[in-house]
């Protein structure tokens, strides 16, 4: 409803403004070009954010100071705290970082955004930047038309910077011409009343433009030609900082609960910082004068002094809020609760798949891998219980002979029921989400995604085979024929060993150990081939089992073989870190059937 009234009203006001003042038209065009430049810049940086994203994030956000530094650096380079916020929500949604790390990045982004004011006040107003804009636009647009992703990305960045420069030029020219007709400064004033009025205007302008950076550039250009007073410019800058949280809140709408919590943290941080700045305005202004005198900024250079003010009040905000990050996390977790966990539904659903992670192919891929691991965890439990074993015993160091003796339950579990509640829904969501994510991915990423989809199918097949195997496992568990009982116990021990090894692989980080253990499970898988190793022939020849038992054993050993084969294939895809060096070598290094045969021959020799 509000949107229906808001947008036409803004358009009417702008149209009226353009009609009565050509200078206003020039300023507005400058803002529009500037915003278009930011969109282009964001597009360019997105082209470079895939692939090693997860690795960089893990290394640069494992400690709070690193998260803050990462936020600062990313915003300084990309010149958009909104983009950094939206990307952080995307990282959170994919489970790549935790809430505390996300808050650290957002805090850092707030300091990083102050570099924009320095660049415009120190460089943008002193040189004729429109002269740089033209070649950038030409080169940028030529590169945008190229097919290569990296060239396209560079093109968007160049064109983005060109539009930013051009926008600043038009804003500056517009304000200079405006000065000769209307003196906007005469509408301003000093005192608490004007402080609140101009803070409100700053918030409103940022909400409309969806960019605090654009508001700040507008403030600096207006200040440079004396269209607003220094005091009012400071209030506008405070407003711009508060208004920018709206962009993050809109970005979090499509995110999961963690994204909403981050947007909440952003709002609390910026409002608190704004309040501190308003309450201690005179003290901060004194600090600005002191810093300006120390670094040699002239007392009447108000644009640079505004940049100093912007930096000081954001740094104060971070310094004040950092000790409370832990409490902030608790507060947000208690107030913004996950509805899906509140509803006591017995159907398990996807945890990492939401629209916010679709922002980048890297986060989408990471979210799908994590969701596949979630599916694996559920399948691991179902298979364990299907074999009537306890999960905690399998993942312990208990001898496998003892593991199979300790039953999970006296009656057989209903695998179909488990499948419907804990596998089917998530599997469907993963396949559906993968199709959505695929449309924005590069061919090499689509190939990786295809392999992940295969891993999901392997997991589901393993669960289905367990269902077939379960029937005879129960039947022959306490059979009076010791020979058939022995064979089924051996199948159980073999599968318990496989599950234990796959669990170990899932927790390993050392590449050499992963490779060796994967090879080991492949060799051990051959034990199920009871036709090849002569076990079945031996049992039949000596009349130790009936024909019915022989048929069951042959079928069930095939099911056990398939469970192992599917789980190993899945482990090769999802437990070797997608960004590790090993991933590029895995296909050449991991054992094939021929290698397994040679090891087995060596063993028999």
């Amino acid at each position: 409803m509000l949107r229906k009234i808001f947008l036409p009203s803004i358009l009417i006001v702008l149209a009226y403004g353009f009609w009565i003042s050509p200078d206003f038209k020039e300023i507005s065009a400058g803002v529009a070009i500037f915003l278009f430049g930011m969109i282009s810049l964001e597009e360019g940086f997105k082209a470079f954010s895939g692939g090693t994203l997860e690795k960089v994030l893990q290394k640069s956000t494992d400690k709070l100071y690193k998260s803050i530094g990462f936020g600062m650096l990313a915003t300084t380079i990309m010149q958009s705290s909104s983009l950094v916020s939206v990307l952080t929500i995307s990282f959170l949604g994919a489970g790549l970082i935790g809430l505390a790390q996300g808050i650290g990045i957002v805090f850092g982004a707030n300091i990083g955004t102050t570099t924009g004011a320095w660049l415009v006040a120190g460089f943008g107003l002193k040189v004729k930047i429109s002269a740089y804009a033209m070649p950038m636009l030409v080169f940028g647009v030529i590169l945008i038309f190229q097919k290569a992703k990296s060239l396209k990305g560079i093109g968007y960045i160049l064109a983005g910077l060109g539009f930013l420069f051009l926008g600043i030029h038009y804003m500056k020219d517009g304000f200079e011409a405006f000065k000769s007709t209307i003196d906007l400064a005469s509408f301003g004033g000093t005192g608490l009343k004007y402080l609140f009025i101009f803070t409100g205007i700053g918030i409103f302008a940022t909400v409309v433009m969806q960019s605090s950076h654009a508001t700040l550039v507008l403030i600096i250009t207006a200040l440079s030609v004396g269209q607003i007073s220094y005091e009012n410019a400071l209030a506008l800058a405070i407003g711009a900082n508060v208004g920018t949280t709206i962009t993050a809140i809109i970005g979090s709408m499509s995110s999961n609960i963690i994204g909403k919590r981050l947007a909440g943290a952003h709002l609390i941080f910026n409002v608190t910082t704004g309040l501190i700045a308003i309450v201690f305005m005179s003290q901060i202004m004194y600090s600005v004068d002191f810093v300006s005198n120390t670094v040699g900024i002239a007392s009447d250079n108000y644009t640079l002094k505004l940049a100093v003010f912007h930096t000081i009040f954001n740094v104060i905000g971070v310094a004040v809020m950092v000790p409370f990050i832990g409490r902030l996390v608790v507060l947000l977790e208690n107030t913004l609760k996950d509805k899906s966990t509140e509803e006591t539904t017995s159907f398990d659903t996807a945890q990492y798949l939401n629209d916010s992670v679709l922002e980048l192919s890297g986060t989408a891929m990471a979210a799908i891998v994590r969701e596949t691991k979630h599916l694996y965890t559920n399948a691991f439990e179902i298979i364990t219980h299907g074999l009537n074993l306890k999960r905690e015993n399998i993942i312990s160091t208990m001898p496998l002979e003892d593991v199979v003796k300790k039953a999970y339950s006296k009656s057989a579990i209903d695998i179909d029921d488990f499948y419907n509640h804990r596998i089917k829904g998530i599997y469907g969501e993963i396949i559906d989400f993968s199709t959505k994510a695929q449309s924005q991915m590069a061919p090499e990423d689509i190939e990786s995604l295809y392999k992940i989809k295969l891993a999901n199918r392997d997991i589901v097949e393993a669960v289905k085979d367990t269902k077939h195997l379960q029937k005879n496992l129960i039947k022959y568990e306490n059979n009076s024929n010791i020979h058939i009982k022995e064979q089924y116990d051996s199948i159980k021990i073999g599968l318990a060993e496989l599950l234990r090894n796959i669990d170990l692989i899932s927790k390993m980080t050392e590449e050499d150990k992963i490779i060796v253990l994967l090879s080991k499970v492949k060799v051990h898988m051959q034990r199920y081939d009871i036709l090849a190793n002569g076990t079945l022939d031996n049992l039949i020849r000596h009349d130790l089992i009936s024909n019915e038992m022989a048929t069951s054993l042959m079928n069930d050993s095939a099911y056990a073989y398939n469970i192992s084969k599917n789980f190993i294939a899945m482990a090769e895809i999802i437990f070797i870190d997608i960004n590790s060096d090993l991933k590029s070598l895995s296909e050449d290094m991991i054992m094939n059937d021929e290698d397994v045969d040679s090891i087995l021959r060596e063993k028999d020799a």
Partner: protein
Amino acid sequence: MGIKKFIENVKESLGLDEFEKAGKKKSIKRLLEKLKSRKEILNKVPKKKLDKKEKKELKEELAIISLQIKKGEKILDELNSKSLKTTKNQKGK
């Protein structure tokens, strides 16, 4: 000259393909080092103190590691010979 050929020429002159191969070589060398040191440790295990099952497991692990080392060395040789060919071709031009 088409844009594709231009990009290929730039990649070749800047050695970007070699950069990728060098990364792969570094990874395989590191992996081989780890596997070899693991083999050394296993070879030093006093076999007399092990029971039959443990001896069998040790033998199997050593066989797997030896095979992995062999595979790794083969990949490394292939990468080295490819680099050599590229360097010769560049010199020939």
